[in-house]
């Protein structure tokens, strides 16, 4: 590799090539000059007029129907005002114009602009729910004010808002948290299902938004449409709900706080799920003002709470589980007798029966019919807490039922292990005596009570389902002897149909209703004060659980009335009306949903 003899040849050729490249670069510079300077004006104008708009193609949210095909929700159009600041010549003038049309303060609009602004080239939501006159004004002034655009969106309207609010849930604007966790599917300003069916089936209902890219000129007129990505509508849902029954439940609980659950015990179909008092879910989609929100969330009647999922002491309703536990463990026979004189002394405490006169001699069937507390105190003492807890769990208590709703409380089946772990104290035998009549730390929701009652009626626990297309989930048959189950079922039939039964107000001629009353004490009572004499907030909660027909159970009804007093007087009549509604008419044939 010596210095080449012909190096000068190579050097000359390099010089030639370099010169050629310089000429090419000059030509390129010239063509930039031609494009930017000679034709610059035209291209600048094209760029000014060149506006890519991403028109979001809203996917219609899926509709929801009841089991008979009756539509429960609809999507209604709503108009929103958008501002593109990059198109505004004079922002003050733009805001003044908008304020004039909307009859709002300019300062108010300016604040909204500051609050909602995104990137420089993103549109800002300035106002929602424009009426048609306002929409027309903005459309007419489109040439003067191209910075404004009126977008049609959809609001979710619950057609039966006042009696399906808790079940259906509502739609609310996305939060920062939603954006962070599901960035790919939700966008700023989206409405998302919250709570209830709308929340739980959000992914199914939402559908897939499409997008149309269009090029518009500086006045917002369409120039070109580019490759659209079409929207895919959300899926519809057919609920297990029976709208008539739900409506009737709402009517019957009018003016009271409480809950009604109606379940088909065979498949777990939720036929009614009503919590009173209710709220207006449509207000959420419209957008609540801070004052409205405060009024709603601080309302002492707590209308936002879904009382079908809130837990309370089950009271005497729990005695059906007690009876079965005692029979199965053999601590009693059906004919074992206990004498009730109105109270008994156990572990150095006097325990009262609700009937101060006493019930006299009671066997199991009569004790259930009369709901005799003294009888069950003795059962509790003989059993101890562990078998009680075991049988309670067999009936689905102490864990969520698995219903597709948020915020379901698991309830509580207390035992010694729980006491040590959670309270840090040992379990006292005296507490077992309280649990034996459904008081003490045990907690059950109306929905769990319905599952428990259904399990007694058909012999297995079922998972409540809200959507007809979802699979039926049944538990294994209860490991309880059929004779024992029949014994308790017969007793519950007597509760309603015997002339002395505590559930007598639920009796229907021609329909075999079986049930159990319950009263959850709010304050511990040392004397036999009449509940009606107590102030309302200290009165007991009333329970009534029932199923019918007794020989072929097709409907379970649970009625829970907060501070209602006795289950027999307050809750049982509501259950009767629900049974009458359900069985009193021919069930319409299901209407197919398109």
């Amino acid at each position, binding site marked *: 590799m010596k210095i080449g003899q012909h190096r000068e040849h190579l050097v000359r050729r390099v010089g030639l090539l*370099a010169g050629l490249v310089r000429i090419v670069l000059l030509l390129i510079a010239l063509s930039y000059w031609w494009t930017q300077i000679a034709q610059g004006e035209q291209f600048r104008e094209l760029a000014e007029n060149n506006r890519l708009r991403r028109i979001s193609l809203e996917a219609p949210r899926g509709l929801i129907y009841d089991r008979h095909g009756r539509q429960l929700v609809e999507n209604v159009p709503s108009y929103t005002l958008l501002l593109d600041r990059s198109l505004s010549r004079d922002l003050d003038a733009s805001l003044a114009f908008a304020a004039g049309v909307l009859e709002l303060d300019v300062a108010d609009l300016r604040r909204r602009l500051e609050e909602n602004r995104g990137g420089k080239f993103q549109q800002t939501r300035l106002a929602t729910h424009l009426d048609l006159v306002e929409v027309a004004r903005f459309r007419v002034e489109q040439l003067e004010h191209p910075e404004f655009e009126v977008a049609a969106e959809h609001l979710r309207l619950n057609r039966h808002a006042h009696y399906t609010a808790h079940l259906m849930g509502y739609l609310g604007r996305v939060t920062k948290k939603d954006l962070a966790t599901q960035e790919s599917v939700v966008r700023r300003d989206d409405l998302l299902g919250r709570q209830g069916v709308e929340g739980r089936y959000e992914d199914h209902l939402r559908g897939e938004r499409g997008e149309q890219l269009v090029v518009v000129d500086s006045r917002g007129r369409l120039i070109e449409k580019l490759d659209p990505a079409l929207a895919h509508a959300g899926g519809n849902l057919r609920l297990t709900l029976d709208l008539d029954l739900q409506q009737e439940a709402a009517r019957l609980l009018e003016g009271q706080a409480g809950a009604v659950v109606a379940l088909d015990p065979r498949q777990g179909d939720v036929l009614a799920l009503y919590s009173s008092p209710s709220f207006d879910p449509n207000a959420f989609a419209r957008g609540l003002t801070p004052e409205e929100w405060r009024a709603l969330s601080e309302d002492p009647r707590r209308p936002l709470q879904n009382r079908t999922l809130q837990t309370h002491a089950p009271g005497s309703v729990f005695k059906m589980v007690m009876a079965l536990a005692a029979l199965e463990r053999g601590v009693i026979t059906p004919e074992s007798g206990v004498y009730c004189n109105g109270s008994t002394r156990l572990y150095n405490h006097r325990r009262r029966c609700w009937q101060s006169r006493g019930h006299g001699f009671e066997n199991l069937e009569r004790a259930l019919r009369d709901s005799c507390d003294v009888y069950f105190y003795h059962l509790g003492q003989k059993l101890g807490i562990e078998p009680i807890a075991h049988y309670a769990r067999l009936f689905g208590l102490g864990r969520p039922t698995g219903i597709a709703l948020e915020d379901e409380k698991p309830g509580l089946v207390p035992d010694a292990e729980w006491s040590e772990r959670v309270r840090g104290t040992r379990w006292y035998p005296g507490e077992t005596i309280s649990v034996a009549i459904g008081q003490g730390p045990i907690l059950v929701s109306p929905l769990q009570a319905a599952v428990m009652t259904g399990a007694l009626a058909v012999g297995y626990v079922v998972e409540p389902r809200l959507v007809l297309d979802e699979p039926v989930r049944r538990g294994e048959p209860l490991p309880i002897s059929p004779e024992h189950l029949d014994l308790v079922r017969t007793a519950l039939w007597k509760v309603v149909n015997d002339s002395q039964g505590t559930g007598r107000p639920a009796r229907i001629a021609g329909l075999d209703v079986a049930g159990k009353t319950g009263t959850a004490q709010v304050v511990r009572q040392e004397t036999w004060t009449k509940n009606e004499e107590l102030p309302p907030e200290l009165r007991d909660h009333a329970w009534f659980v029932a199923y019918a027909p007794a020989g072929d159970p097709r409907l379970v009804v649970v009625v829970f009335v907060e501070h209602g007093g006795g289950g027999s007087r307050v809750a049982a009549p509501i259950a009767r009306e629900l049974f009458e509604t359900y069985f009193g008419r021919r069930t319409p044939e299901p209407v197919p949903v398109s």
Partner: protein
Amino acid sequence: MRSLLLPRSRLSSLEGEQTALRRLGNVNVGPLAAAFLLSLIGLATVASASAEQAESLLARQALWVLVGLAALAVALLFDYHWLVEAAPMFYGLGLVALVLVLVLGHEAGGARSWFAFGPVRVQPSEFHKIATVLLLARYLSRHDRPFLGLRQIAVAAVLTVVPMGLIALERDLGGAAMFLPMLAAMLLVAGVRLRLLVAASLLGLVLAFGLWSFGMKDYQRQRVRTFLAPEEDPLGAGYQVRQSKIAVGSGQWTGRGYGQGTQSQLRFLPERQTDFVMAVLAEEWGFLGVITVLGLFAWFISTAARIAMRSRDRAGILLVVGLLAVVVTHAVYNTAMVVGLLPITGIPLPFISYGGSFMLFNYLAASLVLNVDYRRYVNR
């Protein structure tokens, strides 16, 4: 051919520190200065082009520039004579890498041309360009005559076509095509007789005509037509050309201001950080920005050419010419494509476009150019 594949073990002896420093003062730093200024402009433009994205690419690009500068410094430690001698080894290793990437590579944008090492992706084809330039410089410098014979031309063509073919198999056609100007420039400088040049040009024309008539599919012909008359198909392939020209043209003299280009920021422009980065620059900085960039490229090319011309040996001249040809072709093609002079292909702008492997290639090329100047007095 045997001797060609085995590097002769003639490593450079350690040079005295004093002479090294003195010689450093004589190095033409023009290419380095131009490259660095272009990189700074690239950083600013990439930042603006990715402003609307979730993650700005500025930090990554800055890292790549630093990596490039470090690679430049490290590569300067090796005498280019030794690198040229060792070329068969680089070339062989490069071929292995190209075969491996075909089998194990990462697929992106339809091309299987990447090695992925965690978050870092490396494109071996970029580095094989350097290996091929080194090997061609070695082969063609052996032949100390004013003009090359047909045999030399044929061997050089084969050496070039082998890696080209592998890269084309990876479906990275733009990357494969870049070997042709490299080969052409080195052959021309090494010496091709005029009558051969004319004959080759005629043959090329005939081949192009044959390709158009018989060898091309309809969509490929459509692409060429679109290039010739973009207005006829404003929404298809012509869309990009048109949006790019609008971006460039609307820049006028001084541009629309940094971060203010509607074409760029509203995403009319495709591939804003890579292939169309020049359109972003032209829109936001105007004609003044464009001539600054073109001027810096001219400076880079002129100073590199001067280095080639004052090199004492054929290998040095040919090395600079081959590397320069690749950089120049990228720069010329990209700037011409953005303004609508050539069809749209994925060819990035050296030192400015976003991308790690390409940035590294550019700085290694600059490093070798400086290397030739730095060691021009080393007697061999």
